[in-house]
């Protein structure tokens, strides 16, 4: 079966002083029918990568195949078979939802009726509303409806839920799941790890223009050395603390990360690691302000791989 996307050695350098190396040798394989996420912090090169694959930007170097076709030979054929939602588009304020979808539908030789496309994103009640009267989440769903207008085999969504409230995000996830349920391929970018984890079959973690990890969410989490995470918060006033190296020697502990007053451990078997952790703390005479255990997330994967958080504002 032809892969939906095949990218080899992709490089994009924006000219300027100094030039910006947005993408630096990136490979990507997306199989038909899967939901694939590019996960990475702001400026990682996700949008640049996506727009090159979408035929909107020319790469500096590298090969791109979409649905087995190449942009320089089959641009028109590819455009008929893909659907796109850009990171930021302001659709015409004074057109209604129905008019907007009808306009985009007219560009494609086949596809759902405008009413069907609107129903697919759950905007039936807003069909006669001007787009400037829609909420952020509704606007984003309208953008997806325009992307669905040609019944695409391959759907690209660039940060579809950024800035949305939890309910709007869940509504959009439902839309994406139903697209995937009809056997379509979905490629999305996000810097929300829970989005990638819940929605997608495979995730490529992107940082500084490269894929630094690739796999199913479970595989990636397993790679940080254990599904379980222990967050240990020391009392800020207590200066006596065990050294990070001492935690590493404890049973089943696979990694230790120290950040301010918090030490984060990953452990394969928390029931064996926890008592040892507490013994160590007690022996060092340290005061503990809090202790929680949780299952590992892609956020932990990213921090373990890069030492940084996905979003700057998260401590």
């Amino acid at each position, binding site marked *: 079966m032809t892969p939906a996307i095949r990218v080899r050695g992709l490089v994009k350098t924006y000219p300027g002083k100094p030039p910006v190396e947005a993408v630096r040798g990136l490979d990507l394989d997306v199989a038909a029918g899967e939901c694939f996420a590019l996960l990475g912090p702001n400026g990682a090169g996700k949008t640049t990568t996506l727009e090159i694959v979408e035929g909107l930007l020319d790469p500096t170097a590298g090969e791109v195949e979409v649905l087995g076709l190449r942009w320089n030979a089959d641009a028109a054929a590819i455009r008929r078979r*893909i659907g796109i939602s850009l990171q930021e588009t302001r659709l015409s304020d004074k057109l209604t939802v129905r008019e907007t979808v009808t*306009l985009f539908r007219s560009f494609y030789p086949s596809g759902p009726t405008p009413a069907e496309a609107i129903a697919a994103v759950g905007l039936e009640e807003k069909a006669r509303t001007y787009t400037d009267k829609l909420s952020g989440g509704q606007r984003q769903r309208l953008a997806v409806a325009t992307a669905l207008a040609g019944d695409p085999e391959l759907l690209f969504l660039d940060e579809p839920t950024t800035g949305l409230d939890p309910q709007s995000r869940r509504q959009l996830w439902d839309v994406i799941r139903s697209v995937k349920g009809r056997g379509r391929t979905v490629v999305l970018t996000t810097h929300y790890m829970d989005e990638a984890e819940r929605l997608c079959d495979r995730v490529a973690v992107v940082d500084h223009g490269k894929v630094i990890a690739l796999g199913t969410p479970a595989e990636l989490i397993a790679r940080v050395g254990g599904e379980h995470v222990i967050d240990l918060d020391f009392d800020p006033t207590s200066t006596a603390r065990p050294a990070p190296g001492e935690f590493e020697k404890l049973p089943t502990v696979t990694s230790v990360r120290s950040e301010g007053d918090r030490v984060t451990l990953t452990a394969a078997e928390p029931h064996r690691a926890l008592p040892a952790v507490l013994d160590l703390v007690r022996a060092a005479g340290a005061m503990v302000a809090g202790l929680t255990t949780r299952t590992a997330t892609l956020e932990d994967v990213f921090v373990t791989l890069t030492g940084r958080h996905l979003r700057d504002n998260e401590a």
Partner: protein
Amino acid sequence: MSPLWQLTLARLREFYREPAALFWVYGFPLVLALALGLAFREQPVPAAPVDVQTDPSDPAATEKLREVLAADPGLKVAVHDAATAKQRLRTSKTDLVVIPGPGGSAAEFVYDSTRTEGVLARNAVDRVLVRAANPSFPTPPEATVSEPGSRYIDFLIPGLLGINLLAGGLFGVGFAVGDLRVRKLLKRFAATPMRRSDFLVSLMLSRLVFTLLDVLLLLGFAYLAFDIRVRGSPLALAVLIAAGGAAFAGLGLLIGSRAKTLETVAGLVNALLLPMYVLSGVFFSASRFPEEVQPFIRLLPLTAVNDGLRAVMNDGAGFEAIGYPLLVVAVWGGLSFAIALRIFRWR
């Protein structure tokens, strides 16, 4: 559901659903025409203000002179002492000060010889005095004429039509394209199988509709408010308006073809619009500019359109008068389109 029709419809809807835009495009030119038409209404030449300076030593001579001059309806005579009269002359409250001589004659005229009004008042007073002294001098009969199409408003309306076509093309196409690019909608369109030609033709079609409305409104208004008619060939007028409108839309497309911000578009629009506003004979005739710059002014597309519109509307001309204007706008429009299509940026 043809894409060309849908794109055109979208442009029309976006426009007529913005009431503020509607006023500036359609209402404002009418308000302007009305205001200027009223301000420059045809009026009889007003009587010239003339002061007789009092001669304290001979009040009878002063009064006699006043009487002679006041008999002429073309003069508005007042009597003032020397200081006041001088002050009134300096502030243009009077055009001429006459110092009385013996027996109702004038001893001296005081006026500003660089002011038309001063010279006219001097001539008028002189004529009254000469005629008063020679009552037997024959007076020829007078016949006044009023040529249709020679009022200021007759001159103004074609100029407003021309500048409307230009502003409509520059804003209506240039701004629209710039705005679509800023909103990333051009990029979004470029990601679909939409035919690029459909998009460009839809811009032209929507301009055509707006222009048609604009022209009909302005001409209808001019007819109702000022009884202005098209005296020449309506077909020639329509052809010239269509060609001019298309050329100006091409200029607009060129302006919007690469601009990444609306500020850039605004700057370019003004850079084109303002010089032609002044040079191309919208509010006053372009022939007032020095001879040396006339060849340049005649090459401007708005000058050509305005000259053609005036020839057809006011001078009753037909196709023979619009050959040169058509040539000029064809060159401007053709070049603009060719360059715009070559350098057009979709993102």
